[in-house]
């Protein structure tokens, strides 16, 4: 069967008889995800359509029949009945016996796999003239489906392979005929019906009530406009229902068919207008429609729901900026060109100049190296590094420093942590039992290694989503799939396994959409997205990619198992209410996916996410990196690039960076394709990054929040960095990369929290002086210091950490045993140095603040030394006191 481009369509002359040589015309309506086949079916003399419901872009003429809708989303086809023809699209069975009069009849080839469908509205056919519709049913069926009770059994039979089929018939007037499903296999021994269509000279057995199409505009349209479109129109599609576009209106909502032409009974619209239940009666919360108005709508629907082309409407493709292709903006010209170091600066400066603002001066060298070291490595510079950089004023010094830090193993640790937040990484199951996952660290190490090796982000993506399916899959690429093994698991005694399995699959779906697409996919779990063009069906199409894979961990080996699971829409998001089946797929408002084979799989999805033309992944990835270096994303809602997210402060810069990052430029780019190190290097070498973060006396009224980046942002360090800095300053830090996590001592008393076998939290394991990244993450029992400093607990994908300021943070820095030990060791370090008192204070400041103190600061610290001595403190106590004060400074835990 040929596939045609969306708008190509040919009409066969109505006089052409049925039979071989008929030209078939397909219109594939991408937006609606419905296959529509327009086929010459034979016109009936004298019969006229009372108002066909047709595709937007093509009104059917005479002599056509169309498969308008299949609830299972399978692509039924039209064919011709004859011996050896195949009545099913998914089986090789053939017609072996066929009554003479049915030879060359139109045949709707159905899916045998649809034998389970139990809706009353499974298959809708549009007939342009009166037609004898024959449903062929496997004679093994135990009973007929309810919807077939009004059909007449005829004497003729046919056979498919060696199975006899009964034939049921109705004469149907022009318009839409709706057939139900196979009612859970009652009508056949694991087989579905198929349909034969014959033009008929006979009069329809039920005279069709007719509603003149020209009454639509004056009578129906105003009613829809005034009473429905507010919630079911262009701006809002409550329940997935849209009533201002013909094709969408006839498609129905998420859970029901609103308008079933010809049948008031099957039209949910009428039911919802007239129900006594005020929580369901439309329009919700408003006065109900009058009896006359309801009667009018009923007669319209029963009269075939004619809807003229003039009001068919059109679903405009989303104009939202983030869904548009990535542009190729020119680097703007700026007046203060001397300030510009990279194209980033030109983009930022151009906005600043427009707003009449000027950038802040460059930060001093000590601030710069501390900023860069904390941002790239997560630890402060050593005093030697600090002094060397401050002294080295060569123009190459900064770039060399950047390269050195990017090459350091600590870089991978620091940036792995950002990724682990997204991956909701933890080392226990969560929920009641919260069992440990002793091998989870292997995924953490894979991320560190991949980050240090600068594995290109497209590969990085593909291995994590489909490392088991890639060519040359190996142990490492299977460990990468640990990304989605990080979901929670409820192993409680009475837990419903399927409930938590589907929950994990939903989590994988939502996290994938958040991390790569910046979309709030979870909103479409229960209903069509209120703001973004994501239908509930599309939610489950993405879900389907993950639904047929089960993650296992057997000993050290991570495995993924394929299952034959079929994906269905969950009505209201409830896994106990499966509805129509869906196949894996991506949303219609984004570029099409090119699958390798018939049924797309996770590998196809991963390739699609990083494919050329997919606009979201590069934008989201660039934005995430940006926010770690400037404190806020160019899009300040990094987890929502949808309609409800905030727009980008610098859209051209975002697109320019995204295009560079994804390697979509001709010739030599600024960044090697998909290189995160390259992207980071470009950002940190910009003048924008190197600005001072100090607040002016009076922030500019046009931009008090610094969205235009007239300065750097001051940022409180993340929980791990607070810890690592204290360990580094005290000299305790152990630089061992990777391996099993460490279990620091946890305070007693938290042991009451449940039977978590808390003894194990009272014993340390591993070297306690390793970086915070290596602290064991127990989902229901977070390490207290990290919880206090807004750390990630691994329960949900965390795109942006808070940076709160609380009294408990003060208590932690002052009194937590680990912090206290750092203070004591730092005190020893100062006291045991061979320096004089002033230089000990200098060293303390270098270790904690990466700078020498100003004179009045030195005096305050000297005053502390003197006060402590005055309180007859021992020398150890004096220098411990200095160290404790330094480690508690606001500046110490802030990246300037």
């Amino acid at each position, binding site marked *: 069967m040929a596939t045609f481009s969306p708008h190509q369509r040919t009409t066969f002359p109505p006089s052409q008889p049925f039979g071989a040589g008929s030209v078939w015309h397909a219109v594939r309506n991408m937006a609606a995800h419905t296959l529509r086949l327009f086929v010459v079916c034979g016109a009936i003399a004298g019969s006229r359509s009372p108002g066909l419901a047709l595709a937007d872009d093509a009104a059917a003429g005479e002599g056509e029949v169309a498969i308008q809708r299949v609830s299972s989303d399978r692509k039924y086809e039209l064919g011709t009945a004859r011996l050896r023809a195949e009545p099913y699209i998914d089986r090789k069975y053939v017609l072996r016996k066929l009554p003479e009069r049915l030879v060359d009849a139109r045949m709707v080839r159905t899916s045998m796999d649809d034998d389970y469908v139990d809706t009353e509205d499974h298959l809708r056919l549009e007939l342009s003239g009166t037609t004898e519709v024959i449903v062929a049913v496997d004679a093994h069926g135990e009973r007929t489906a309810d919807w077939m009770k009004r059909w007449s059994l005829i004497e003729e039979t046919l056979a498919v392979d060696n199975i006899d089929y009964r034939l049921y018939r109705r004469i149907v007037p022009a318009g839409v005929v709706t057939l139900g499903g196979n009612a859970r296999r009652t009508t056949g021994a694991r087989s579905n019906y198929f349909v034969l269509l014959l033009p008929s000279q006979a009069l329809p057995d039920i005279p069709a009530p007719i509603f003149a199409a020209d009454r639509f505009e004056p009578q129906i349209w105003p009613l829809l406009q005034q009473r429905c479109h507010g919630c079911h129109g262009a701006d809002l599609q409550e329940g997935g229902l849209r009533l201002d576009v013909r094709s969408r209106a006839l498609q129905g909502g998420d859970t029901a068919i609103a308008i079933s032409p010809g049948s008031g009974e099957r039209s949910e619209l009428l039911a919802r207008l007239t129900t006594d239940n005020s929580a369901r009666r439309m329009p919700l919360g408003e006065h109900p429609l009058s009896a006359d108005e309801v009667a009018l709508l009923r007669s319209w629907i029963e009269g075939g729901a004619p809807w003229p082309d003039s009001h068919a409407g059109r679903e405009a493709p989303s104009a939202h900026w983030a869904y548009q292709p990535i542009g190729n903006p020119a680097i703007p010209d700026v007046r203060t060109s001397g300030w510009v170091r990279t194209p980033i600066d030109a983009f930022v400066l151009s906005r600043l100049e427009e707003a009449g603002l000027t950038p802040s001066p460059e930060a001093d060298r000590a601030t710069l190296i501390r900023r860069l070291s904390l941002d790239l490595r997560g630890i402060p510079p050593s005093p030697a590094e600090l002094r060397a950089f401050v002294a080295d004023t060569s123009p190459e010094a900064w770039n060399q420093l950047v390269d050195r830090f990017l090459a350091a193993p600590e870089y991978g640790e620091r940036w792995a942590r950002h990724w682990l937040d997204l991956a909701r990484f933890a080392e226990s199951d969560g*929920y009641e039992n919260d069992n440990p996952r002793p091998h989870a660290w292997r995924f953490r190490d894979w991320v560190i290694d991949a980050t240090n090796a600068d594995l290109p982000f497209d590969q990085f993506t593909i291995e994590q989503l489909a490392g088991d399916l890639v060519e040359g899959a190996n142990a490492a690429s299977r460990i990468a799939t640990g990304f989605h093994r990080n979901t929670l698991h409820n192993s*409680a005694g*009475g837990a419903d396994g399927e409930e938590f399995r589907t929950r994990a699959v939903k989590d994988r779906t939502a996290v994938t959409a958040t991390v790569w697409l910046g979309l709030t996919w979870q909103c479409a779990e229960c209903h069509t997205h209120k703001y973004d063009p994501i239908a509930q069906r599309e939610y489950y199409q993405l879900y389907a990619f993950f639904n047929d894979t089960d993650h296992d961990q057997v000993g050290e080996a991570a495995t993924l198992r394929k299952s034959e699971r079929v994906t269905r829409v969950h009505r209201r998001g409830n896994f106990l209410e499966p509805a129509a089946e869906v196949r894996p797929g991506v949303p219609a408002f984004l570029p099409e996916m090119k699958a390798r084979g018939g049924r797309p799989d996770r590998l196809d999805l991963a390739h699609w996410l990083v494919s050329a033309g997919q606009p979201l992944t590069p934008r989201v990835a660039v934005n995430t990196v940006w926010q770690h270096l400037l404190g806020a994303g160019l899009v300040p809602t990094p987890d929502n690039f949808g309609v409800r997210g905030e727009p980008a402060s610098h859209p051209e810069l975002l697109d320019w960076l995204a295009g560079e990052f994804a390697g979509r430029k001709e010739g030599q780019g600024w960044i090697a394709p998909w290189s995160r190190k390259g992207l980071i290097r470009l950002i940190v070498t910009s003048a924008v990054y190197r600005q001072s973060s100090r607040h*002016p006396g009076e922030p500019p009224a046009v931009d008090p929040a610094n969205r235009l980046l007239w300065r750097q942002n001051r940022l409180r360090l993340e929980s791990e960095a607070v810890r690592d800095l204290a360990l580094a300053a005290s000299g305790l830090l152990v630089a061992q990369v990777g391996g099993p996590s460490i279990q620091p001592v946890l305070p007693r008393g938290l042991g009451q929290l449940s039977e*978590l076998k808390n003894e194990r939290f009272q014993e340390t394991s591993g070297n306690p002086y390793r970086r915070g990244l290596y602290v064991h993450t127990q989902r229901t029992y977070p390490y207290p210091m990290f919880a206090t400093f807004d750390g990630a607990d691994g329960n*949900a994908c965390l795109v942006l950490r*808070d940076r709160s300021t609380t009294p408990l943070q003060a208590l932690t820095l002052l009194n937590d045993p680990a912090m206290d030990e750092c203070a004591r060791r730092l005190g020893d370090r100062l006291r045991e140095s061979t320096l004089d008192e002033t230089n000990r204070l200098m060293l303390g400041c270098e270790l904690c603040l990466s700078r020498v103190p100003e004179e009045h600061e030195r005096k*305050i610290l000297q005053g502390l030394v003197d006060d402590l001595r005055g309180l007859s403190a021992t020398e150890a106590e004096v220098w411990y006191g200095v160290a404790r004060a330094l480690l508690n400074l606001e500046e110490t835990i802030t990246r300037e």
Partner: protein
Amino acid sequence: MTTTGNRLASATGHLRDITQTRRDFFTSSAGGGVAGLAALAGLLQRDGVIAAESGLPANSLAPRAPHGFGQAKNCILIFLAGGTSHLELFDPKPRLTELDGQPIPESFLKGVRFSFVKPGQSVLMASRRGFRKYGESGLELSELLPHIGACADDIGLVRSLHHGAFDHAPGELEMLTGRDQPGRPSLGAWLTYGLGSESQNLPGFVALVNQRGPVARAMAWGAGYLPSVHQGVLLRGEGEPILNLATPEGIAAGQHRAQLEAIRRMNEVNAGRARDPEIETRIAAYELAFRMQTAAPELIDLASETQETRELYGVDRAGQPGAFARNCLLARRLVERGVRMVSLFQRTWDHHKDLDRDLENQCREVDQPIGGLLRDLKRRGLLDSTLVIWGTEFGRTAITENAKPGREAGRDHHPHCFSLWMAGGGVRGGTVVGSSDELGWHPASDPVHTHDFHATVLHLLGLDHTRLTYRHRGLEQRLTDVAGRVVEPLLG
């Protein structure tokens, strides 16, 4: 790393010293502490305004005006985790008594899932416990709850609560965070986010755990996606009352003070240089932490309570573990000091077997302390401004988990219909809202979903659940998701 050993004993000594020098801390440097604090108050107020008007995260606990209704200022949630049996305690079912030992009609099983019970093998089980009419209102409660019953005229009882989470962790999360999955803020976090805290020297949200805590552990008082300042602080049963409250061993109070002085002065220098308001907030956080070091040990020291009060709660009852009673008394002391939310957990109610025996023991343990708390609050004039809630994650099934009813039998989890009550804080006393069917299986009238329960609690505390929002993942998130209605008949 060093272990702190028994730091509290020595720490209290330091704290006493600190108290004596506290005045110095706030006044010693000219233009220092007090001025700084005043500046901070302005900042916090400003944050509050920002929060109220734009929904931006307010990083503070400054008291904020409620939306304008409700009279409760504080909330004490007594969460009896495990699943308290509504059939024994709150919802008499004479028909169930008649059907004792009979199989359950199949119609009841439709759409209902169980944790352990096998419906085909289980039979209906009558309550072995009687009910009594209490108070002038004649509210029917279990004979096992005489002290709570004595406060019946202050109690609004809901007999038609329902949700869909039938395991402990999801059930707790559903009741405590409005969603049966981890990651959302708990009720107390929402309250301090919405209202701030009146307390100047204690956290705004305190959790107390008795024996075994909730299975949701820290998520039961977590801040979810709200800033961590809203996270509940666990008041610990052993060691220091608040984690890391005590100054490390061996630091003389004078030295501690000198260090804090230096920290403040250095921070002030930096504030003058960087001019980031966040530095003032940090300075204020250190001052609050310092006050907490004094206030928290004073809080847990019950020496100032009279013998009569101790007896009212049963703190020293013979043969009864006193920790629960002590926590109830602490709850009163906390709300007295302006703490917005106190969550009290005891997880001993999961009666899969030996329901008869264990329930009696558990009731004996909690009835007097809870009754005592209600009466104590009332006589001090605090009950009108304090909402007290008996909470649990679900009720229990009308069928036994065992083959036959009897003393050893128990009941399975039942979230489809169960009971809880509220008292004080503007609740209409002596009221029953909603009813269950004849087996206590499904709500028969006025069903109250978790979202409705939360909407009502927020309403009683003066917050409109549709307006208490926090922007997260690009959406205005709410405790009640997109649902919830205030249960009007519960309002006084």
